[in-house]
């Protein structure tokens, strides 16, 4: 299975490389002045990066404070009854709560679950599937809307969080089916 994983890493790199090399080669044969064209497009990179700074600061500061306050632990300890009914450990529940806010924090929590429950445990597998089926919604919303300076996001977060919730429920259902 080590082989499978290496294979998937090689595949990802090859796909990346085929974009990186394939696009200019295709452009060259279509008569595009590839170097000029690339530089012209790339010019906007800095401008976009600077434009998203205020939005990133707003989100990352709030999430950073939330993580440091210990609120997550408090919430998790307050509702253990629900967790038992769903067959979730407190760590997995924390993972579900932090997932829309921070990708790094949710991977960190998965690392903890792997360390405490074991890499082949039900909890570790469930956590992995949850990470695979959800996204850091708040961060994506901040960056994408920040780039076009949209502040009235209407129902984008609602839709994203509904998708995350369904992803979590589907992950629990599928993991029960396969691993329980």
């Amino acid at each position: 299975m080590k082989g499978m994983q290496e294979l998937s890493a090689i595949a990802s790199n090859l796909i990346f490389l085929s974009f990186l090399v394939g696009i200019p080669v295709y452009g060259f044969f279509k008569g595009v002045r590839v170097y000029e064209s690339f530089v012209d497009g790339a010019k906007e990179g800095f401008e976009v990066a600077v434009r998203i700074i205020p939005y990133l600061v707003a989100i990352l500061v709030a999430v950073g404070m939330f993580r440091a306050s210990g609120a997550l632990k408090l919430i998790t300890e307050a509702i253990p009854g629900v967790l038992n009914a769903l067959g979730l450990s407190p760590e997995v529940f924390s993972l579900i709560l932090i997932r829309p806010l921070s990708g790094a924090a949710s991977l960190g929590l998965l690392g903890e679950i792997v360390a405490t429950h074991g890499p082949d445990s039900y909890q570790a597998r469930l956590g992995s599937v949850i990470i695979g089926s959800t996204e850091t919604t708040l961060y994506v919303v901040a960056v994408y809307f920040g780039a076009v300076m949209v502040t009235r996001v209407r129902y984008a977060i609602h839709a994203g969080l509904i998708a995350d919730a369904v992803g979590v429920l589907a992950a629990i259902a599928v993991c029960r089916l396969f691993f329980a």
Partner: protein
Amino acid sequence: MLNIIWLVLLVGSAAVAVFTGQVKEVVLAATESAGSAFKLALGFTGIMALWLGLMRIAEQSGLIGAFTRWISPLMQFLFPRIPDGHPALGSMTMNIVANMFGLSNAATPLGIRAMQDLDTLNCHKGTATNEMCMFLAINTSSVQLVPASAIALLAAGGSSDPTVVIFPAIVATCASTVAGILAARLLSGLRRFRQEPSEKAEP
């Protein structure tokens, strides 16, 4: 919604910090996060420039146009109001493909580019359009097929079979994407989410 989430995070964290005696840590986290947000954005500049440059070549060579025509039935179903052949269809498609393969380095610049293309169709600047919300719903539902970083963690922990989670993850991520699309479609019809209070015909 963003207003409320942001405020709840700030006020909630401060309140809990006082309660648990973590005030110093929370203040430190706030200042450090502000700094890391800036560093993150700057670090992002290079990769952003790289993909914007490649996108320009792909556009001028007609590659994106060809690709868009190929996938257009699906995109037309998801984004019926975007005119045929609009660049937003191409950049959104590129972003979704990059996301599916887990190329997050490529997906974010392409997604930002897609948002800029969508913004050209926006007649209420500063307010999200239905198409932006649909695109975000698809993005935030995770379309990544293989959860590579989770698998890496399982493998690093000494798992005997780390890739066993791939199939369940694909099933769950399909469910979440369908839910995101349905949610965006349904919510767009709600009165309270109208683009403008005095909205007439949308573009």
